[in-house]
């Protein structure tokens, strides 16, 4: 029963749409505020100075490639592997800084308006996404022939709703943090 549900083409389409949205949104917000993102990269203190600038281009461009590639069937397995690799890099970077005790730095995940700081929750979120991507890369090809237009449509709709709700929740959390800080200051 559970096996059938997990292998439903609609779930596959959902996973694919989620990854597409996450990576496209990440790439878009980083490229739009690239200067700030350069500061974010150097703040992680993992790269030598000369590599920070190139990395601040390379990371969002890789995200863009993954986001686009995952939506296109022939490139999908490669994009999904790319997604797993990128998320691994992110998790290692976050993990090292958590171990250093530098929780207060900006994660740079999406827009810095969200003021998401480093936390174990972020690593967990990335790990869930890695699971989705791994499944897309290795488990999904058998299901692919059975996918119809309705699967794509519903999968995308569900992913959009999840993305909007996630954005709303992060935005509200960021505002709560601002309100909390200003109360403390006052």
């Amino acid at each position, binding site marked *: 029963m559970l096996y059938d549900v997990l292998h439903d083409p609609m779930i596959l389409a959902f996973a694919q749409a989620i990854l597409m949205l996450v990576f496209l949104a990440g790439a878009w917000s980083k490229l739009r505020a690239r*200067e*700030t*993102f*350069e*500061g*974010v990269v*150097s*703040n992680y203190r993992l790269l030598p*100075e000369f590599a920070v600038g190139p990395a601040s281009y390379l990371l969002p461009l890789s995200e863009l490639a993954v986001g686009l590639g995952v939506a296109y069937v022939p490139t999908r397995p490669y994009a999904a592997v790319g997604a797993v690799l990128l998320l691994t890099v992110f998790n290692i970077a976050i993990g090292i800084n958590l171990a250093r005790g530098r929780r*207060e*730095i*900006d994660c740079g995940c999406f827009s*810095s308006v969200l003021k998401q700081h480093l936390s174990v929750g972020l690593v967990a979120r990335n790990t869930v996404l890695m699971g989705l991507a791994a499944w897309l890369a290795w488990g999904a090809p058998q299901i692919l022939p059975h996918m119809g237009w*309705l699967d794509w*449509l*519903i999968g995308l*709709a*569900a992913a*959009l*709703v999840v993305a*909007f*709700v996630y*954005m*709303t929740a992060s*935005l*509200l959390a*960021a*505002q709560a943090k*601002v*309100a909390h*800080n*200003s109360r*403390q*200051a*006052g």
Partner: protein
Amino acid sequence: MLEGLLVSNILLWAIAIALSVTVLALARQIGLLHERSAPLGAMVTDNGPEIGDKAPTFQLDDFSGKRVEIGGVQHRDTLLVFLAPSCPMCNKLLPTMRALGREEHLDVIIVSDGAREDHERFLRKHQIDNIPYVVSAEIGIGYRIGRVPYAVLIDNQGVIRAKGLVNTREHLESLVEAKAMNVASLQAYLKEARAQDAEDGHRHSGKSAHTSSAGR
């Protein structure tokens, strides 16, 4: 029957998307209310020494060991900018600060706090020319700085003329403008202008036009 269910399902998804977009927009609006009640000018958090007060005076050595005097009678106005080495927003403001200091003939002083190696890394990476870089928690506490980047404009008589959070070039410039127009902040100016308008609208009907032309 089955087709009806399918249509209803697609409709429901469309509604779910519309609803989640609406909630997101609502959350953004709350954020706007929170943070940008007036979008122009640096936000003034109502803490610490007030505008019009004498600035607390400090005498201490900057990072390179040069003596720096903050507050009191000076021969030029002083722009105190509070930063943290780990704040990406602050790095973006550095060129603006340098330019503003040159154009407006201000003495810019950067005040920062944190571990010594962080400052060394920061100074290696960023050109601050001859702007004094002071590491001191006391100054931040003296001005009740809760968030950075924050700037305080002190005139040459040692009086605080403007202050606020400065996230953009426009915010930074607004402090200088606020001083030039002799108001505490652009927000205070707007508030005053609105109150005046409401009080005797017919006599001051030209006031709001004046507000926008005085901007820049």
